[in-house]
């Protein structure tokens, strides 16, 4: 057997895996989403929809868009991960003592 010291036996806990994966995957999805969205729409054109007086420049528009997508994607994949992981397991029904 190989000594433990040699082995990269490092394993992340399931919660840690879930948190990092959700944050990272939603980050990547948000990056793609932002790119496609702002290739089609100019943030300056969009600000007029919400509030005609809203005077923000494009940089701020891009940033707001990116974080909007990131939070949305994180919410979506986080909820999915949460529901999948906390779903009732079959054994729970057997009322084991």
């Amino acid at each position, binding site marked *: 057997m*190989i000594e433990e*010291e*040699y*082995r*990269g*036996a*490092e*394993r*992340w*806990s*399931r*919660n*840690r*895996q879930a*948190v*990092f*994966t959700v944050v*990272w*995957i939603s980050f990547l999805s948000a990056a793609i989403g932002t*790119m*496609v969205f*702002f*290739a*089609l729409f*100019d943030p300056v054109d969009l600000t007029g929809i919400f509030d005609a007086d809203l005077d923000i*420049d*494009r*940089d*701020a528009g*891009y*940033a707001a868009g990116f974080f909007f997508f990131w939070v949305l994607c994180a919410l979506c994949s986080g909820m999915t991960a*949460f529901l999948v*992981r*906390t779903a009732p397991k079959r054994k729970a029904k057997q009322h084991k003592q």
Partner: protein
Amino acid sequence: MNSPAGASMYESAKKIYPREIGGRFARLSYIATLSLLGIFYFLPWLTWDDRQAVLFDLPARKFYLLGLTLWPQDFPYLALLLIIAALSLFFFTALAGRLWCGFACPQTVWTEIFIWMEQWTEGTRSQRMKLDKAPWSFEKLRKKASKQLLWITFSMWTGFTFVGYFTPIRELGADIVALNVGGWTFFWGTFYGLATYGNAGYLREQVCKYMCPYARFQSAMFDKDTLIISYDEDRGEPRGSRKRGDDPAEKGLGDCIDCTLCVQVCPTGIDIREGLQYECIACAACIDACDSVMDKMNYPRGLVRFTTENSLKQRPSRILRPRTIIYATLLLSLCSGLVYSLATRTPLILDVIRDRNSLYREIPDDRVENIYTLKLINQSHEPRSFVLRVTGFAGIELDGAPGQILVEGGGVMSLPVRVRAHRDDAQGIHAIHFSATAVDDPGVHVEEDSRFLGPTP
């Protein structure tokens, strides 16, 4: 969350100390790292026609790629480029396995650089392990602090370079020296720098193991002819230690001397002798390690090597097979399509937006008019004059557009125009076509369709 596993969430994970190894593939990875990062750090400084050669000018919504200027309207090129990138990944994965992971992925490349800096400041694998176990001393503090200094400086430079793709990098540099950086510029630079620091300094192979989608689904692109790193079990087993010069046949042993060097060098901490595992990023460090041992033992190299499942089982390997042929054909046609359409691109865009607020307007002399906003975008670098026309049905006329419209190089001209027709000709819905033609070159010509609404018959 109240799950019992929650308690271990912040448990410090066991660290992997990959052992450094020289060899053919280490040299290859060295070259790949240097050239890829070289391109990343050097490219924004390149000048083309008095402007930055590669600049994604988001505030102005224009992309400069060498001699090419792309506009938001050129979005299809971007989509095509993304599809080509994905297909290339499939193609090279089918051919050569996780070549991308081991040599070209930014995660690998930046991790490599960060490990170099770790080695310069903290020493070899065994020195690093000893240092981490040792109590805090001035020496430990000095080594750790110089590592952090290198890492942080490098991360900041990385963040600066990243922002330099979106803001002219020379001006940005001058702004930084003058401590006059815009809020968002500072934010994105720090954000990217921090991400590099965290990903390459701390998360490292955990990104590949737990966070990378490609690592999980790449097996779908594998077949028995895909190049993988594999341990030759038939030759190596039974493994066992021995003295140099012992005849393995006499002791009933295979060629593996069980030195565990292949495990020690592995950045993801797997044992390649247990077969292909999804954690393997094909960095080939184990091949270098094993080859060096085989050389010392005077055994032939290649106990661990790049091979295919078929050739391990003494069956012929094929490079040309339906999977690679399909990927290659698709890739080739998309690439040539992209090159062709870029080469024959008309440097002029005409957008037509029909005024949605009114269907049509009645004007004197029994005529009706529709209102449109035309956007003329001159994508060439020189100012140009254009002639606008509208066709579609009898008696249709354009009003509000001067005979020749001058648009500056790289400029946008927004033009409200009216299209008029006699009400007898204009009943119902008509398809109409706007066209714009450059005065100096009739070849520069675009058409755009719209609709004309008239009174119901």
